[in-house]
């Protein structure tokens, strides 16, 4: 199934905090990222990919158009998806994540806006976000090929004519030749990465000093 990148506009993160944002006692544990699609009509969302940066839990809400006449509604399609099994340790903190529409709680038809709600309850990290956010919609289906008739309806095997004695069985010969041909094709196609084991260049291993780059 092919996918097509949807150009999107990612707004800056907004921290949700109780009380005065200026107090330095605590860092916000909840961030919201809004994603709009200014030049695209409501589409069916196929996949979301991003690189995590120390976000522990992710929720996603989408604004969906249900039908032509009702106004668009916000629906939660992912709730508290765990990105870091232990919010205090490094595991999962910088991983690449892909989320597909079959993982979502609702169907993803006619999406016009996206809102990501990031949570990081641990006070150990200075900041957290998601990066390289990319949204995909379903690509065009590959055109169905029509098989030639002889592939889809093979003719029944003809009885081979009787051979004189001494000749090898033709079906056996043909299968062996086929195997050999397949082997040669394989060898030609695969570029072996096996090293020959030479570390010198044309017998010479007279070196400069080691390079620092």
């Amino acid at each position, binding site marked *: 199934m092919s996918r097509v990148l949807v150009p999107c506009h990612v707004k800056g993160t907004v921290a949700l905090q109780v009380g005065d944002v200026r107090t330095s006692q605590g860092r916000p544990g909840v961030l919201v990222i809004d994603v709009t699609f200014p030049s695209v009509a409501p589409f069916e969302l196929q996949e979301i990919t991003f690189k995590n940066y120390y976000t522990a839990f992710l929720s996603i809400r989408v604004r969906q158009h249900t039908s032509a006449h009702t106004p668009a509604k916000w629906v939660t399609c992912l709730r508290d998806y765990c990105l870091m099994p232990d919010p205090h340790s490094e*595991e999962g903190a910088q991983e690449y994540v892909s989320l597909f529409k079959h993982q979502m709680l609702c169907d993803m038809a006619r999406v016009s806006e996206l809102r990501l709600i990031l949570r990081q309850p641990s006070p150990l990290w*200075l900041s957290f976000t998601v*990066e390289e956010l990319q949204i995909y919609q379903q690509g065009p289906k590959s055109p169905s090929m029509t098989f030639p008739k002889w592939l889809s309806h093979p003719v029944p095997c003809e009885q081979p004519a009787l051979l004189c004695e001494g000749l090898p069985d033709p079906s056996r010969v043909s299968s062996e030749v086929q195997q050999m041909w397949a082997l040669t094709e394989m060898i030609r196609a695969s570029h072996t990465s096996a090293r020959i084991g030479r*570390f010198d*260049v044309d017998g010479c291993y007279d*070196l*400069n000093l*080691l390079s620092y*780059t």
Partner: protein
Amino acid sequence: MLQEESDLSLIIAQIVQKLKGSNLYSQLERQAWGNWEKRILKSLNSMCTELSIPLARKRPVGEQKELLNKWNEMGTDEPDLSLFRPVYAPKDFLEVLINLRNPNYENGDSLSFRTHLGLIQVPLKVKDIPELKECFVELGLNTGQLGIDDSTQVPPELFENEHVRIGQKVLAEQDSAAAQQYIRQGSPTALRAELWALILNISSEPEDVLYYEQLKTNVIQHDLLVDSLIYKDVKLTASNDDYYFVFEDYLYQVLLCFSRDTSVLSHFAYNSASPPKSYIRGKLGLEEYAVFYPPNGVIPFHGFSMYVAPLCFLYHEPSKLYQIFREMYVRFFFRLHSISSHPSGIVSLCLLFETLLQTYLPQLFYHLREIGAQPLRISFKWMVRAFSGYLATDQLLLLWDRILGYNSLEILAVLAAAVFAFRAVNLMEVTSLAAAEAVLADLSTLKVMPLLQIFLFATVT
């Protein structure tokens, strides 16, 4: 040792400052490692220029013949190695690990609940004892172990005979996965060599012997600066060890060939380090003349030969010994001297050790810290060498059985903590780092399996 030790902390602190606010922890990993690698390269280059010895040199034919003749007794050679110094020692590496910082991690200057009390300040996920118990379930009190249930007081009918019989069956079936499961309870001495070969997928095909002979030819044709480092290391470590000095010649035969083996380069695909590069003289910058140095990309450090020494008890045929060592290195040992966040990497092992000690022996940990004897400073050298040269050989081989069986090095950290737990009473009475080192200087009388079993399964937590 290298002179820039104090500079290193400064350099690393500066790099960390620059990286503060930048995005990638992995960048820090690479930066820290990059600086460390540069330092090693500088040291090697300066040794090269100071001593006016080329990095690599083709041997004249006469010298080649001579070396070929005394291939089996290279230990009798007494070259002047006084001017060579090891590129680095484990304690230099420990300083690098201590200074690893995550720029996104709250590391306030004042002590808070966020500061790690041990030396490692990186918040990697490590297992605690309940998780280790689940992981190492075959070491439990109800399961028979070689190293415990084969002692002279226990009649062999209870466990040992049956265990040996199963081992022979596993070997007859040539089942590698079954061998790995079997060896978690230890390997009988007679079967160990074959079992390890089965688990590591080493079979002595003629092409393997041929490959080794090819490496031997490479050693004879070219002389590398790294060879002198290897000689020095063997002379300083294995030759001085009561158990291993007899294998001195084997060690040269294995390690010199190991340096020429380009197939080791493939392990850099999953190692965060990268092999040192150079160019053929006169062709600086031309990629077709770029080569790795040494050919296998691994620069030996002080104590490197101890990875090979215990294997000499099991394998006497040089090409098989070589293959086993190479496989052990690219599967396990390389993790002990490179920086990564892998659970078997040395950073995780150090953190696991410190966390276990802090959680289950808090009084001891606090006491040692107060007297300026951070426990990791003592146990680091054990873990980096996988306890080789510190334990008695039969105990060491039982330990390495479990490394192969569980495919993980975490058992090294657990053993280190178990040793501290065992000597806790004596350690509580010391008042200095030197005295603590003295208490833990001699591990040769320790029995590994009872220590592990008691620490994991029989300590009241």
